[in-house]
């Protein structure tokens, strides 16, 4: 058997000035699962993800990745898709691939080229000339071309048109390795809920629910999307 790895949040709190972004979060993310991190805007999704990736360092509590604080080792285990484009505009898509190849030993160049092709993206395209949706697609291709333990995708569907969402889900499912953990933050739940094992609901920085999706449907007779709408009714 493969031994399970996990990301563990213990009593994690974080505030930006007077704004409490996370309060007392206790969560365990295990490999072998696809987990949906769900919450309305400003509920703390991206803050959690930034902590996992070591981009935020001043917070209370601990966040351990396979037993360690975020460091170089944890970064090599995590393939991270940020919620905004981060490549220089003058670069070509191919330049970004080179960068990934230099930085990550687990990057699969050939796979990435295949994915770009499926997404209809030309490697010689300048990033400057890509639309928001194209940038998202291309960054997703990069991230899914690594063989990582954890894939952390922050809003992978936000700028992508509905027709391409199916393709992206397919790419995610095909390239996700069953022994890894996939964490996807989103508020486009109905498009994606069928691929989740588990969901985490974040409300004002607090985890209000962590549950297996099928159990949730069994108990409520409702879709995750509908439950979400009830919990977060404005």
């Amino acid at each position, binding site marked *: 058997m493969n031994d399970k790895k996990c990301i563990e949040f213990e009593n994690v709190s974080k505030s930006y000035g007077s704004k409490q972004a996370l309060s007392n979060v206790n969560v365990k993310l295990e490999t072998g699962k696809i987990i949906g991190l769900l919450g309305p805007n400003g509920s703390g999704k991206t803050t959690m993800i930034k902590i996992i990736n070591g981009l935020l360092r001043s917070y209370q509590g601990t966040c351990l990745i396979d037993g360690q604080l975020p460091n170089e080792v944890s970064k090599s285990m995590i393939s991270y898709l940020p919620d905004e484009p981060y490549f220089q505009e003058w670069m070509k898509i191919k330049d970004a691939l080179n960068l990934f190849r230099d930085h990550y030993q687990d990057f699969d160049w050939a796979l990435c080229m295949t994915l770009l092709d499926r997404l209809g993206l030309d490697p010689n395209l300048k990033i400057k000339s890509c639309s928001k949706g194209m940038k998202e697609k291309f960054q997703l291709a990069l991230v899914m071309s690594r063989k990582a333990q954890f894939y952390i995708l922050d809003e992978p569907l936000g700028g992508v048109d509905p027709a391409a969402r199916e393709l992206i889900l397919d790419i995610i499912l095909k390239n996700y390795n069953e022994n890894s953990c996939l964490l996807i933050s989103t508020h486009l739940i109905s498009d994606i809920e069928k691929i989740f094992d588990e969901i985490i609901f974040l409300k004002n920085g607090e985890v209000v629910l962590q549950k297996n999706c099928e159990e949730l*449907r069994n108990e409520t007779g409702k879709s995750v999307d509908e439950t979400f709408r009830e919990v977060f009714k404005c």
Partner: protein
Amino acid sequence: MKNFDSNIPIYLQVMDDIKKQIITGKLKPNDKLSSVRELAQTYAVNPNTIQRTFQELEKEDLVKSERTSGRYVCADENRINNLRFKMTEKVICDFINELNELGYKENDIPQLLEQVKEKYYER
């Protein structure tokens, strides 16, 4: 089949689909089932959902798992006939329930069925 009703656990819906394939003979006794990974892609769902589907189908003895070689459709014709009857029963019960909701009584059903059947097969 890609359109799941997200109000119902997905493993149940995949189970139903596989059961239908068994009943209609698309999957024959002793046929080998596709792997978890393949089915996950066909149905565009999480591999663990397919795993769960298989577990439940095994519990109902419709699928047998051979340790190393994979999973096979059950060879027991009786069991498959039972399954066919159970699924038929469910369709008919749902049908009667809905007619009751529309205000029809037991005695109305045969005549109604005749009427609609004619129209249906004309098409």
